[in-house]
């Protein structure tokens, strides 16, 4: 068993860290405070070839392995969790299903623009009454002479106001439940498609997640992704990979909180000495460091499964479950170590704490991850 990253993975980690510290971290608190989407970062993410890291160069990607991509999401999220999820939703949820299930024409039409960062992507599965029970969605796609007509709404759609390509799931045969769901590629500016008001969220406030609406929205037949009725399968397989990206985001948040706690513990003097010399603090730091390291091993293992062509559904679920709950625990302890200052915006740990919580919820709640894991364990 080799626990060493390859040369390329180490260099990618160092370069993304350098980029994140120089250009992402300085605006992280401000975009959080103002609920502002970091438009200025997208061209830089594209220049760094981060928007399509795991896709082949011939399709506009960087041709990196999945583990390198996961490391990049981790490092970006360490500086700014909002930026991490903007990238992860674009690359893992929007680009991947086209790359995996798209026809050659669909791949050529969309993947190069998305992988190179020219067009931002979004993934539209969740509905007001269909979250974890994604198959219960009521948005419909009715066959029309030259395509389909979409009606209904979706909510919590990351990147929606600024995306140009959307993966939309809608029922082509509502009577068949989840099996009647199909996937479509929707372009912005399609008549009948609109974006609602952004949600005011607890965390990841730089990432915009408004609802979207379809009102007699006509899309061409070639917008169908995969076959009719394959939508639920496409959604689940996409989320299997996407949740490794969210696990990496959680890992980055946890590492940021640990870094801040270590730094503060060394500087903060109480009883005439740095609080890092107190056993109560040392034990908290020890637990935090161990959990972060364990989360990293699970996340990297899941990504390694992707790279080696092995099944990764259970491994991805374990990684997301543990990394996300670790992020919340570690960020909570980081606030505890900071004391009253940690409860203020003077230090980043309150943002880490707020950002961490969502990683236990989106792209499959912790409860869903436990379902996936227990099914595998009890098989």
């Amino acid at each position, binding site marked *: 068993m080799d626990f060493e990253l390859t040369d390329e993975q180490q*260099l990618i980690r160092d*370069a993304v860290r350098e980029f994140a510290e120089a250009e992402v971290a300085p605006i992280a608190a401000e975009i959080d405070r103002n609920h502002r989407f970091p438009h200025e970062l997208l061209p830089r993410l594209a220049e760094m070839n981060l928007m399509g890291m795991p896709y082949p160069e011939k399709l506009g990607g*960087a041709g990196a392995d999945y583990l390198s991509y996961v490391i990049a999401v981790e490092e970006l999220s360490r500086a700014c969790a909002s930026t991490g999820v903007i990238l992860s939703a674009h690359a893992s949820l929007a680009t991947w299903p086209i790359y995996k299930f798209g026809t050659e024409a669909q791949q050529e039409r969309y993947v190069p623009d998305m992988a190179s960062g020219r067009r931002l992507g979004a993934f539209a599965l969740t509905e007001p009454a269909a979250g974890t029970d994604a198959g219960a969605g009521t948005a419909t796609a009715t066959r029309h002479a030259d395509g389909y007509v979409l009606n209904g709404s979706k909510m919590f759609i990351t990147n929606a106001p600024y995306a140009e390509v959307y993966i939309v799931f809608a029922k082509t045969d509502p009577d068949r439940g989840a099996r009647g769901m199909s996937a479509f590629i929707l372009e912005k500016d399609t008549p009948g498609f609109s974006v609602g008001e952004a949600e005011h969220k607890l965390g990841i406030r730089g990432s915009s997640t408004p609802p979207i609406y379809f009102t007699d929205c006509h899309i061409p037949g070639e917008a169908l992704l995969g076959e009719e009725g394959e939508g639920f399968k496409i959604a689940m397989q996409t989320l299997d990979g996407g949740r490794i990206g969210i696990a990496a985001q959680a890992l980055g948040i946890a590492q940021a909180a640990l870094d801040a706690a270590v730094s503060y513990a060394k500087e903060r003097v109480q009883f005439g000495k740095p609080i890092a010399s107190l056993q109560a603090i040392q034990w908290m730091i020890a637990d935090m460091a161990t959990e972060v390291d364990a989360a990293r091993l699970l996340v990297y293992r899941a990504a390694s499964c992707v790279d080696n062509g092995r099944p990764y559904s259970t491994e991805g679920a374990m990684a997301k479950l543990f990394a996300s709950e670790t992020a919340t625990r570690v960020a909570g302890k980081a606030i505890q170590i900071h004391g009253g200052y940690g409860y203020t915006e003077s230090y980043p740990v309150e943002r880490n704490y707020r950002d961490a919580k969502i990683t236990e919820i989106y792209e499959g709640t912790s409860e869903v991850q436990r379902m996936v894991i227990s099914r595998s364990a009890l098989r």
Partner: protein
Amino acid sequence: MRIVVAYKWTCDPEEATVGADGTVDWSRAKPGLSAYDPVAIELARQFADATGAELIGVTVGGKGVGTPIAAKAALGRGLDRVVIVEDASLAGAGPSELAAVLAEVIRQIGDVDLVLTGDSSVDVAAKMVPTVLAGTLGWPAVAEVTSISGQAGELRVERAIPGGVQVLKVRGPAVLAAAADAAVPRIPGMKDLLAAAKKPAEHAELAALTVPARAAVMTVTGWSRPERKARKGQLIDASDPAQAAGELITALRQADAL
């Protein structure tokens, strides 16, 4: 046109720990490109792009400088190829020895019009190698370089001097040490890093080079630390901010700091 950047692969002293007895523990310090060398590479890359020159990295040193990751890290920053001399005898080598080996590699590459270096190395920071290298090659040496233009054989070089910029015309090949802030090094993109493994990395054997006998023209014979001035330890009561500010200004003026 052919440009060489002489770079150093070494550990950052900020990552080393110093024991109570003054011994330095480097075991947890991660090796990397010396801090100012990416500035030199960026300055050289911009000039090479403007002139169509080939950009070659050269490094010489002890164990580790020839590892694949060291070569890829340098190549990922924009070099076209690298030539590496890794030999245990070069660990901790002084400026004369390093310059002698660098000069021989540069001669062997041939037709080199310009050599750039970083402002100083992150570990020693003595700023000697560029000058000794130029002396060894018989070329002019220019430090604090902020801008390069022109063409092979006739360069226009700008250098930072106190209070302004000096503009030089430099004939013939030269060794230029880039100022620490001469350029903002680009952070390598993912494609740059992944392509680095495909670029040529030549490993030259020290024994195969015709390096003059190691009778160094210049030998470092000792080091000493700057004398530390005793601190005054003057505390100002800040309960009245306006009065405290006045006292601070007075104290700074008395100390000739304002």
